[in-house]
């Protein structure tokens, strides 16, 4: 059953969120996302390494349905497609917002939570890029979920395959203003 995005809220992770209730271990390697959320997300936030935003239902604001962690980053010019580099000043790298982690509770798969979370990330990217230089939104995807980022709605651009098999995707921030 789809969840209407208007039913969701996206607070920054805080002590009132029941992180231990977040379950994500159905798919290969996804238990790492569960472990990060339960054990490291708050520490990383306190250390200013990343900030974790949580998807909750407005009528149940302590129960996490999904989360994403964001951090400042950059993307190397060499990792952009050649046509993307055309017209850019020849810097070695460009400022970016990194989606470090992105996960949905196992009980919420195919309920629209991931789509709503990503559109909230897009919204945050828009706001950020209005205040600070942020040329790209980037993510390192596991090979098993590249379909999510290449979906026409998200439409990330596949950049390069990284060591270990992950794939680097990027999205030009200007596309949000079209």
């Amino acid at each position, binding site marked *: 059953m789809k969840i209407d995005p208007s039913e969701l809220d996206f607070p920054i992770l805080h002590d009132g969120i029941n992180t231990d209730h977040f379950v994500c271990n159905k798919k290969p390697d996804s238990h790492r996302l569960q472990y990060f959320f339960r054990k490291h997300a708050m520490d990383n936030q306190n250390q200013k390494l990343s900030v974790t935003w949580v998807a909750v239902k407005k009528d149940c604001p302590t129960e996490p349905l999904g989360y994403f962690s964001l951090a400042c980053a950059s993307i190397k010019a060499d990792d952009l497609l050649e046509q993307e580099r055309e*017209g850019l000043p020849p810097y070695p*790298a460009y400022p970016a917002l990194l989606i470090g982690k992105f996960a949905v509770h196992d009980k919420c798969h195919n309920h629209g939570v991931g789509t709503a979370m990503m559109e909230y990330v897009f*919204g*945050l990217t828009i706001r950020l890029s209005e205040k600070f230089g942020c040329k790209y939104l980037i993510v390192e995807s596991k090979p098993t979920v590249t379909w999510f980022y290449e979906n*026409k*709605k*998200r*439409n990330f651009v596949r950049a390069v395959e990284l060591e270990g098999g992950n794939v680097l995707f990027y999205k030009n921030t200007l596309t949000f*203003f*079209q």
Partner: protein
Amino acid sequence: MAEPFNTSIELHGEDARRFHEYDQDPFKFENAQSRDAAKRARVIAAKIRL
């Protein structure tokens, strides 16, 4: 992580022309669904206070 801004770079000739045509076609990958998603994201962004 690489430093994203190299302030010692001076743009001349072809590079300068390319810089000024910088946003000539950043949208070549976009489609109707991604444009709709961007539109929804702008509505979301308007409600976010940073």
